[in-house]
């Protein structure tokens, strides 16, 4: 049984690596074709986006290699420290952060800009994993559950305060690993009800909504009457739910729309719902309508014009001639949709699905809880980006600046995803070891 110990590289999950590399190459091609104008322009021009992206990929590969040759326990032990460092960086950003497109979430060092919120995802994932893996943590207790939520929500709130709502929303994806680790089903129900309540308070007038909520409460009391007779606490729960629902719909949502959300966000949310922004939520001096959904309209035109088979590579009229704004960052999918049509787009969606399911499989085969939770965090972040980005390019979700993993142009985004996945692969290489 003198079986030679496999090297780290041999123990890596090459299927995942293959899928990631495929996505990165698709991304570089999408960036190239969306900028391509004629063959006369040299391909190997470092000034051009696809070459920069290639360079970022090279750097990411080097970082990934370094990660592969690092001891897997290091990530466990550095988790909390890195989290603290991340929080400090986020706080520092408030002081010295530069402003890019209205958000103060960047640290500028010369020509290099760095977004702590992006890297903080990795640190939060590690810390959450370490917390859930800790022997003293009992995730069945409310206290520990709140602790878990706090780990996630602290960076989230900080980032919201930096005006990067899109990035902040990504942190909600950490509820997925927490759910896997035992967050009760009722959380899901409450979550969905919350979303339903949120949407209905935007779409339905206040007074009718109040009546509807009250009617549902009365019905609930009628149906649950016997149970209420047995457990008096039930009536408190129902009345409490009614109070919360009324409070959210009548007070909280209007308050948030008036005072927390930016004008453009309000507009995007309403434009997604196919509604005009009501007068009360309009910011002073704001032009209603028109430009707010320009991106989405152009993006839908680009994707929609692709048809079943697409216009063929380099033949995308909409992306090639820059009709879609931000077409190699957030809206990179437009180029794919236009050039490769429904078939190509579906293949891309399936590649993402394969990658995410593969990560779930990887997560479930871990011996250590730390590795499992971390893998779920990776899957959840990927899923959130994938779902929201594609939904927004297709007009199903409001436009919040969320990149398409591995495809969107941009060094920080690409590197953070590669690092995220590389760490997961490193942990997976040691899946038979208990890491703590």
């Amino acid at each position, binding site marked *: 049984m003198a079986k030679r110990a496999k090297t780290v590289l041999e123990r890596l999950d090459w299927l995942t690596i293959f899928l990631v590399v495929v996505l990165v190459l698709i991304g570089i091609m999408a960036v190239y074709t969306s900028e391509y*104008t004629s063959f006369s322009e040299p391909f190997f021009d470092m000034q051009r986006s696809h070459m920069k992206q290639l360079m970022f990929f090279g750097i990411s590969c080097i970082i990934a290699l370094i990660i592969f040759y690092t001891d897997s326990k290091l990530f466990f032990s550095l988790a909390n420290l890195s989290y603290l460092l991340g929080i400090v960086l986020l706080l520092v950003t408030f002081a010295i952060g530069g402003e890019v497109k209205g958000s103060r979430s960047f640290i500028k060092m010369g020509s290099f800009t760095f977004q702590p919120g992006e890297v903080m995802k990795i640190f939060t994932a590690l810390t959450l994993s370490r917390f859930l893996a800790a022997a003293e943590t009992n995730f069945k207790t409310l206290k520990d559950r709140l602790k878990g939520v706090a780990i996630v929500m602290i960076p989230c709130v900080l980032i919201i305060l930096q005006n990067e709502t899109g990035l902040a929303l990504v942190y909600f994806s950490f509820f*997925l690993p927490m*759910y*896997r680790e035992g967050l009760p089903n009722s959380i899901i129900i409450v979550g969905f009800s919350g979303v339903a309540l949120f949407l209905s308070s935007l779409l339905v007038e206040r007074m009718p909504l109040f009546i509807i909520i009250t009617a549902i409460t009365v019905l609930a009391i009628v149906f649950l009457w016997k149970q209420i007779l047995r457990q008096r606490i039930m009536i408190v729960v129902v009345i409490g739910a009614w109070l919360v629902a009324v409070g959210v719909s009548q007070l909280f949502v209007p308050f948030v729309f008036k005072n927390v959300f930016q004008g453009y966000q309000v507009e995007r949310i309403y434009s997604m719902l196919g509604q005009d922004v009501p007068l009360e939520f309009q910011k002073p001096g704001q032009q209603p309508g028109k430009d707010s959904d320009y991106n989405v309209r152009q993006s*839908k*035109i*680009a*994707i*929609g*014009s*692709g*048809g*079943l088979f697409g216009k063929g590579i380099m033949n995308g*009229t*909409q992306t*090639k*001639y*820059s*009709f879609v704004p931000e077409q190699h960052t957030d809206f990179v999918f437009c180029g794919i*949709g236009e050039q490769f*049509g*429904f078939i190509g*787009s*579906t293949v891309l*969606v*399936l590649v*993402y*699905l394969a990658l*995410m*399911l593969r990560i*779930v*499989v990887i*997560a*479930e*085969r871990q011996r250590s809880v730390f590795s499992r939770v971390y893998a*779920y965090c990776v*899957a959840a972040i990927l*899923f959130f980006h*994938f*779902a929201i980005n*594609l*939904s927004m390019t*297709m007009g*199903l979700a409001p436009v919040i600046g969320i990149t398409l993993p591995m495809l969107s142009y941009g060094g920080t985004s690409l590197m953070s995803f590669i690092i995220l996945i590389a760490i997961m692969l490193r942990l997976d290489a040691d899946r038979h070891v208990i890491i703590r």
Partner: protein
Amino acid sequence: MKNIAENPRAWIIGLLFSIMAIVLVFRLFNLQVVDDKYKLLADDQAIYRKVIYPARGSIVDRNNNPVLYNNVAFDLMVTPSKVGKGSGMDTMVFCELLGIDSLTFKKEIDKVINKVGRQKVGVFKADISHELNARLQENMYLFSGFELVERSNRSYPKAAGALLLGYLSEVTPGMLQTERFASYRQGDYVGMSGLENVYEEELRGTRGVQYLVRDVMNRPRDSYKDGELDTAAIAGQELELYLDGDLQAYGEKLMSGKMGSAVAIDPQTGGILAMVSAPSFDPNLLTGSEKGRNFSMLSQMATKPLFNYAIQGAYMPGSTFKPITGLVGLDVGAITPAFGYPCGGGYGACGRFIRCTHAGGGHAANLKVALANSCNSYFCDVFRKVVDYSKFGGVHNGLQKWHDYMYNFGFGHPLGVDITGEKGGQIPDSNYFNGVYSKWNSCTMTIIGMGQGEIALTPLQLANSMCLIANEGYYYTPHFVKSIGKNANHPKLAKFKEKHTPMHIAHESYKAVKDGMEMVVTNGTGRVARLDGVAVCGKTGTVENYASVYGKYTKLDNHSVFVCFAPKDTPKIAIAVIVQNAGYGATWAGPVASLMMEKYLTDTVKRKPLQEKMFNANLIKKYTYVLDSMQRQKDKIRWDMKMAGKLEKERMAKVGDTILTQRMIENFYKLKNK
């Protein structure tokens, strides 16, 4: 893998991922496959449809010489809505390029808005110079609301035939409403008159379309789908005319300094060899950027050069009508060729004495001699004999019969020539006389027999009637176009191939009249038209005419009229010439007709002194200008009165309303008080 099976939440998460993927794929399917709205939107946005204007068809004369050339011109077009604020266009740079100030820029834009509205394309500056075009082409992408459109512009090497060829201009909003021009766009050029208008469909060709892909800055980049959807522009078809370009130019030169018309027709085909309307003008005036100014200049001239005297002017034919009177007399049987009238210097059978230029000497011993000497008495008598002919039973029926003859000669109605604006002249019938006179008989209108009185013919009709006599009984509708795109059997030309044989007058009758007309030239009043070796038939005419000047019925100088055709038996050309207020027919109209005939039949003109005399004569009388200005004043007063009447009517209508309301109120109170 066993862990997965153990923990249902892993499955739920996997399921969540899959459901999201399915939702997205479903959405993609909806966007890309089901809904083609986006494809159309994309095309609309990114594909620039460039209209390629074809070269307009050329026009050549019977000798295959071009009567006009096509020049390429560029129009600067603008869509006002794309120019205003927020277009990002640098107006200053644009104005500098064009060499205008921003005030002019705004004015021109406003002009376009007034003309076509904000959303449509209008002409900002027509016919820009080549140099400016080159400069603009380079920078066009900077000015997104503007585009340069290629047009073909005409130029006329012989500077002749302005009215018959017609001119090109931008299609007017009114024309766009009509079915004929429904497919035109604002700013397109269209034939406004003459042949350009009548053969617009053939001349304009088919517009081509080139699809270009444009970027977000509106710059056309590449051809779309390698040009597989493009359609090439098909050039317009060539018109070949019967017109003799040289003869036309020569005729215009002969008629210079005169008012009137000269029409030459090939009797065997009905093809118009020349159609001079004097005063004529250089057709090059109505092309290019000065077009508008020249047009208003021409339209204000007292001599009315834009009026086509050949088809719109109606004249009493005078003595040139006598061959026709004679023919009708012969055909109905009222006279024979041997019939003679004892003219003693005038016709007095109707009380009023109608003077004849000759007295005695048997100058009207028979039809031939009477024609040669142009005896007034003879033809007044013949006319009366026709309408009073016992066979018809009364002058009413007789006049109606005569009217039918006139119709068959092509008088009293437009012939259907293939240029615009033809008028029909006037031939009175018994209704007309019933309306004017309470009681009338053949004496009332006896001078019609000698071409005076209530009849009016266009020069074209006169020339056509000569064709009918020359051909002894038939004519083809006079027309210009011989073939369209080398196809002589083009459906549009079918009606000109039809041989009209409206009457069956005996050969002998024609022979008698033709002999008489020949004698006019050999030893009658029209000896000026004699050509060596050619049997020319002709007839002079000197037409009395009057005008009302300051309420007074004033006699003006006689119109000089001449008709002729030659050779007598195999006619090749028939000409009718009218020179207004010039005097005797043989003095002015005769030489013009004869010189044109000589030019056409022999290619050279030997009678140089006569030609010089014609070239240099200025016969436009001073009172022409007075009459014109009086007419314009009259028109203005009439217009003002009409407008005043309209205003008065509107005012009355309002007052009427008030009265009506008052009455209603009164009635209301009456009822209430009851």
